[in-house]
């Protein structure tokens, strides 16, 4: 796909080009939004806000990195804003010290399906879920995460360790045929 032409046409507000850009990236971006939220409806709200930002700021994209990566960053930031401003996520995004879950010494081989793993990540408390997504999936360092969420990097590290331990515990249990709740549209 010729991204340069597509971006140029989107900047000119050509509807077909906008639709094409959306259709090309929307499924992957909804996957990202889905990992940060607790429901598909919230994920779609984040996706909507994110794409509005994408079209608004597309003129500032300088082709210095991949277009997908640029859109992905916008989606992650939109998701973080959504979590910060949405009351129902506020309770879980407190990053308070919680009892440490036992850390598994044996890292499991993740032989779950993609959607099953994503569902397990979404079962984590919002704080854990956010930090796990940012560090394990997006690849941000703890210092970066600390500045993004307004916490110390130590908190980020400890929260991540707990999230990771909890998730490994669940993966192991899941592998032993303990079925988690099915996710999906309500």
């Amino acid at each position: 796909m010729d991204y340069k032409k597509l971006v140029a046409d989107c900047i000119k507000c050509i509807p077909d080009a906008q639709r094409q850009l959306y259709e090309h990236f929307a499924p992957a971006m909804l996957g990202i939004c889905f990992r940060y939220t607790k429901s598909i409806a919230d994920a779609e709200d984040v996706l909507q806000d994110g794409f509005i930002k994408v079209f608004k700021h597309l003129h500032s994209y300088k082709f210095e990195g991949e277009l997908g990566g640029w859109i992905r960053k916008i989606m992650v930031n939109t998701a973080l804003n959504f979590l910060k401003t949405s009351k129902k996520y506020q309770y879980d995004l407190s990053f308070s010290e919680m009892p440490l879950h036992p850390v598994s010494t044996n890292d499991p081989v993740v032989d779950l399906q993609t959607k099953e793993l994503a569902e397990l990540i979404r079962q984590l408390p919002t704080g854990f879920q956010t930090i796990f997504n940012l560090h394990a999936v997006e690849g941000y360092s703890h210092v970066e995460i600390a500045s993004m969420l307004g916490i110390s990097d130590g908190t980020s590290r400890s929260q991540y360790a707990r999230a990771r331990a909890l998730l490994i515990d669940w993966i192991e249990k899941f592998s032993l045929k303990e079925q988690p709740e099915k996710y999906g549209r309500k």
Partner: protein
Amino acid sequence: MEENKFEKQVQQKMNELQIQPSEAVWKKIESQIEKKKERRWGLIILFLCSVIILSGGYWLWNGEKQKVVENSRSEKSMLEKNSNSSATIKEDTIVQQQIHSTSESANRKNNDVAKDEEKRKAKENTLFNNSKANQPFNLDDKSATMFSIKKKIKDKTDGKTEMQISSAETSQKQTVNENTINDSLNKNYKEISVDSLSKPVVLDETIKHEDTSKHQQAIIETIKHSNKKRWKFGLLFASGVSGAGKDVFSLTYPAASYNSGNLNSGGPQQQGFSSSATKAGFGFIAGVSAEKNISKKIEFASGINFKSFSTSFKLYDSAGTYSARIAANKYINHFNFIEVPLSLKFQLGNGKHLPLSWQAGISISELISSNALQLNSSTGYYYKDNSLLNKTQVGFNTAFLLTLFSKQKNSILIGPYFYYDASKIANEGLYDKKHFVFTGLHTQIIFGK
């Protein structure tokens, strides 16, 4: 190493995650993008209208200024001409006296030796020479005046040859202004019988008086004309209470639940959450005004204003997120507009010291920003969505204004102001079918008398 292995596996799997969004998401995105385009166009149109109004006002202002300068110049020249003509009138008095004495002697001769043609001709020649002798001192119009008088004398004394003299005299060139003055003089002379020629001074005063009054009238007309056409500019500020209600008299509305239709699309619908009562807040209007007389007692007023209205309700949260679940904290919704008012100002009564006027008109406003919250009644959360608000608003304004310092160069207008927004604030959401109402004190400074 182990940690990296686990993370890599997770990262790989999560990067593969793709979910097809529902069609409604794109429709919402599309409508938002289009609204932004429309809003941009709205702002461009508003900006262009403002530029046209301001440049038109400036052009008219300059044009009228030039006209006033030209009028004052023509008045000056009229005054100069009038002073000349009054000098002429004085000279005419002398001539009339001469004519008068001549006519008396002619009458006498007519009685004594009526048939002495030679002598009469000699006298007429003397008269003619007299008038000619005055010419370097006088204007041509005097000759016409003399002709008029002499004709009357001739009619009375049965003269015959005066027409020849008159044709010679009237052949001289006369300017338009001089003609006007001559006409006026001739008219007066014709109306007066020959007997009344014995009172030439009275006649002169009448002419002078009529001429002065005409001149004054002309000046008044000029001033009136220039005042009527001139734009007056000013600054205005109105502050007071703004609110949103269902009718003209309501600034508040009680707690109620609303369907937002925006959040949790596809999620389960819950009932029960309602907004707290919406209360009135502070509002103000500030801007520049331009006014112009369209008749003796009616003025047209326009301008461009920044208008800010606010309403308030209570929320739950303390850190930037909002909920209607527990009413505790106050939140103020601001609505900022650019407004173009179009009004007529009617002068009431004949108050000379404190003139009172009634202003009424319409205002076209464009929403430029707002922090207004909407309520999702199913979740009980407030959220911002300005796309639900109608961007263009049309309302009615009215005010009773008392003019202070009306005889000074800059006058101040002060009085109660009322505004009602005929357009709905929004067609859905928390402000569904509500209208803005604003009432306050209007103050305005008009520059120039």
